[in-house]
């Protein structure tokens, strides 16, 4: 047993990520009750899915707890494979086959990179145990290769641009329970990996901080911009994961810069923002995915252009979804703002401590992050208003919220509010993790010295102010009257639901700016006759990385395949011949 005991180690970082996983897993599992009912009614077997789902959760927890490289790779593969198999719940659909295959390929590509990385670490230290992997940056060459491999390998899992191509393919087709877990937790395994590798090789040279900062900023900006152009709600949320991974990456990059310059305050703010955002993203992304799942169960569509007016059917759901949307946009008073604020403070602190040309560069990134926030506001006002507000674009027969939906949604919403209004204890936990794991005697109180009490006070006073105004409003309305009337239609009194603003028209002006990168194109068919017949409008956006890099690469490889086709023969004697040749080559090699 002692042998097995060595495989697992609980340090601050592990426990923190384990907490994140567990926090997201429990309500997601509760939501399973209502989500899978739908399949049971259709007489579909869900045994396989449930088994894979449970194994996946266990494997994900073991990833963050493991202390042994081989064990890590085994549980990592288990997690990837079980999530792939669970994704195949609706395997008869073609899009499911395609999307899940993307996921499988991406997972396998990255495991190769991880093999090489761990072999290098083993070769360097002579051990398989994580706690003996602390090689530092003394051997710059090997350490750089390890860090780069780690950043690429785990970056594929996390979905940094340009390795994000599998996310928007895999998330929409996965069962909602799984996409909530994929987006909320599994991609965080990549973040955990990057932080772990950092702990092996720290302190890293500053250049890695800058590389990661630029990649993360690109991921954040274009992640949200792609999201703005989507009509499929789950695909949109998948792109938002790219954005949020970008924000987490920005935090880590600031931490790298701090560690390179030996500035514990910057390190604490950077890594602290990243860790807290990891938790926050797990919370609000699960909330949003589960919300979209509830809508899918009821309406049977993921296309937001076909929704509308849900607020009149399910007020509670729209409130929960709104809380999640405000939180993910980084708008106060909910949790997204808190972690973004820490990252902003990291920028300010870096500029202050390092002077020179740093203030200008940091200012550029601050503007970038503010730009991301603005885009997220545009995107989530679009999502909320098109899905929930206005009148029904397609008639809704009935809309039902189960108890398990309510429990899981309210759990996540509660945490969004709690972390937003009372950040101090959560920041305290992050601070503890950092002081245990990340710094060697260099403690800084930068994180807990932010006036968290002021935030609580301001947010509470906003709430109180709103409440007071609400009472005043009720009082005045009772006195002077309140009624509902038709919206003003510019003299036209037959407004119908098709005349509402659509999602594509809402986002059109913004999407037209980076047209080439978004691969955004519009198809307009206007009738030219005097008496207008039917007109048509469509707008699409395709993924740049997928369409311009991955697909051409695959096509290129396909073209090469005929050249090595001579190896695949039907006669077994050829294979025996190949084996003999290979054995001969190996035998000869031993003489050299």
């Amino acid at each position, binding site marked *: 047993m002692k042998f097995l005991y060595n495989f697992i180690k609980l340090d601050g970082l592990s426990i923190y990520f384990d907490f994140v996983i567990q926090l997201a897993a429990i309500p997601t599992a509760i939501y399973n009750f209502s989500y899978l009912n739908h399949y049971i009614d259709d007489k579909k077997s869900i045994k396989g899915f449930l088994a894979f789902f449970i194994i996946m959760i266990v494997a994900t927890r073991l990833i963050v707890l493991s202390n042994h490289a081989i064990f890590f790779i085994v549980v990592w593969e288990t997690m990837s494979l079980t999530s792939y198999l669970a994704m195949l719940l609706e395997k008869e659909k073609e899009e499911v086959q395609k999307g899940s295959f993307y996921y499988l390929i991406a997972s396998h590509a990255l495991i190769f990179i991880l093999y090489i990385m761990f072999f290098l670490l083993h070769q360097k230290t002579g051990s398989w145990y994580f706690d003996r992997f602390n090689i530092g940056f003394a051997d710059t060459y090997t350490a750089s290769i390890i860090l780069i491999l780690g950043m690429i390998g785990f970056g594929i899992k996390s979905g940094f641009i340009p390795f994000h191509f599998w996310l928007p393919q895999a998330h929409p087709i996965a069962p909602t329970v799984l996409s909530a877990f994929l987006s909320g937790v599994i991609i965080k395994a990549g973040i955990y990996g990057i932080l772990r590798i950092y702990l092996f090789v720290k302190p890293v040279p500053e250049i890695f901080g800058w590389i990661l900062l630029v990649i993360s900023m690109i991921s954040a900006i274009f992640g949200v911009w792609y999201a703005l152009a989507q009509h499929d709600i789950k695909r949109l949320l998948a792109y938002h994961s790219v954005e949020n991974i970008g924000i987490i990456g920005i935090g880590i990059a600031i931490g790298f810069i701090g560690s390179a310059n030996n500035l514990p305050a910057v390190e604490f703010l950077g890594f602290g923002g990243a860790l807290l955002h990891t938790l926050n993203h797990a919370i609000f992304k699960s909330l949003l995915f589960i919300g979209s799942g509830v809508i899918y169960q009821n309406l049977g569509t993921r296309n937001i252009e076909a929704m*509308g*007016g849900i*607020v009149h059917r399910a*007020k509670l759901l729209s409130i929960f979804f*709104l809380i999640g949307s*405000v939180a993910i*946009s*980084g708008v*106060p*008073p909910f949790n997204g703002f808190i972690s973004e*604020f820490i990252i*902003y*403070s990291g920028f300010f602190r870096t*500029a*202050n401590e390092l002077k020179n*040309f740093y*203030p*200008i560069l*940091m*200012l550029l990134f*601050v*503007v970038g992050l*503010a*730009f991301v*926030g*603005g*885009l997220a*506001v*545009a995107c989530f*006002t679009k999502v909320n*208003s*098109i899905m*929930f*507000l*206005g*009148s029904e674009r397609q008639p809704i027969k009935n809309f039902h919220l189960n108890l398990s939906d309510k429990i899981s949604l309210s759990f996540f919403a509660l945490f969004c509010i709690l972390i937003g209004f009372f950040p101090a204890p959560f920041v305290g936990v992050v601070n503890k993790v950092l002081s245990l794991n990340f710094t060697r005697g260099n403690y800084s109180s930068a994180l807990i010295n*932010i*006036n968290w009490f002021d*935030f609580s006070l*301001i947010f509470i006073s906003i709430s109180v*102010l*709103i409440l007071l*105004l609400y009472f*005043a*409003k009720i009082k005045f*309305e009772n006195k*002077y*009257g309140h*009624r*509902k*009337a*038709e*919206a003003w*239609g*510019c003299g036209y009194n037959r*407004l119908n639901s098709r005349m509402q*603003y659509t999602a594509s028209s*809402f986002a059109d*002006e*913004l999407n037209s700016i980076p047209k080439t990168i978004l691969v955004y194109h519009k198809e307009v068919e206007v009738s030219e006759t005097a008496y207008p017949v039917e007109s048509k409008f469509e707008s699409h956006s395709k993924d740049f990385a997928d369409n311009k890099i991955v697909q051409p690469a695959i096509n290129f490889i396909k073209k090469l395949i005929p050249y090595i086709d001579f190896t695949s023969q039907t006669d077994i004697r050829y294979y025996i011949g190949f084996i003999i040749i290979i054995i001969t080559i190996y035998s000869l090699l031993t003489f050299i």
Partner: protein
Amino acid sequence: MSSALIEKIFSLIIILFLAPFFAGLVNKFKAILTGRVGAPILQPYFELMRLLKKETINATTSSFISRISPLINFAAMLIAASMLPVGNFKSIISFDGDIILFAYILGFARFFQILAAMDIGSSFEGMGAAREATFALFAEPIFFFSIGSISFLSGMTSLYDIYHSIQLTNISYEVFIIICSISVFMLAVTECSRMPVDDPNTHLELTMIHEVMILDNSGFDLMLYQYSSFIKLFIYAMLEVGFFYPFALQNYWLGIIIFVVGLLALSLSLAIVETITSRYKMKNIPQYLLFATAIGILNLLIYTFTNRI
């Protein structure tokens, strides 16, 4: 009572009561410049009182969003305004990093304003909401390249400290500050929906941004929207007037005088700009905003490079 508390209460009273007055002042100046007598300066107060006594009507398609959005808007504006210094008084809310909270609280108000507009389910409001979302996005960098760059150069992260870190010692810094104030002025014009970006006076839906978003509101809701737009104008006025504080230097009464004179000068210049320019075409507005951003970036680069050599 401590003097700090009195200062804060005084600031709050100034913000609440002077905000409509400032809007009235701008309108009065504009009327005089265009050769009209114009409404009395106190007209905004009368408007608010009138709206308070009207029936509240919501669209049939609207939901709870329309009902809470005016409240959120007003509360957010009030909190944002209380982060700014009035004269030499310490801001009501002031802590390290409040520049970020300031920008994001305004974003919070905008989020709900856009939602409330889309809540009506009419294309007019939708059009306004889409424009607001787009232009706000381009306005954000202007704020950070002006106030934010002063913050990064001085190392201060609280709005009060940022304004009080401005020292008129060398000529290149003075030029830098003056150009920053021009950026902020251009930002104020955008955010407060004044000419040449938006027209606060007409309700022609197809051309407007802010006014069309509140088209289907009335009574108490409209009153709060109007009041918060007055406060928003006042917020940007305070952002602009803040650039004059270095002249006051810890003297209470001088601070107040500069505050008042600054507001007068600003309202006059807003009125002049509105008189001599016409509203831009919608498609030119992003260019206007990018121009303001470019001014900010160039200004910062020029300042840093002249100081380095």
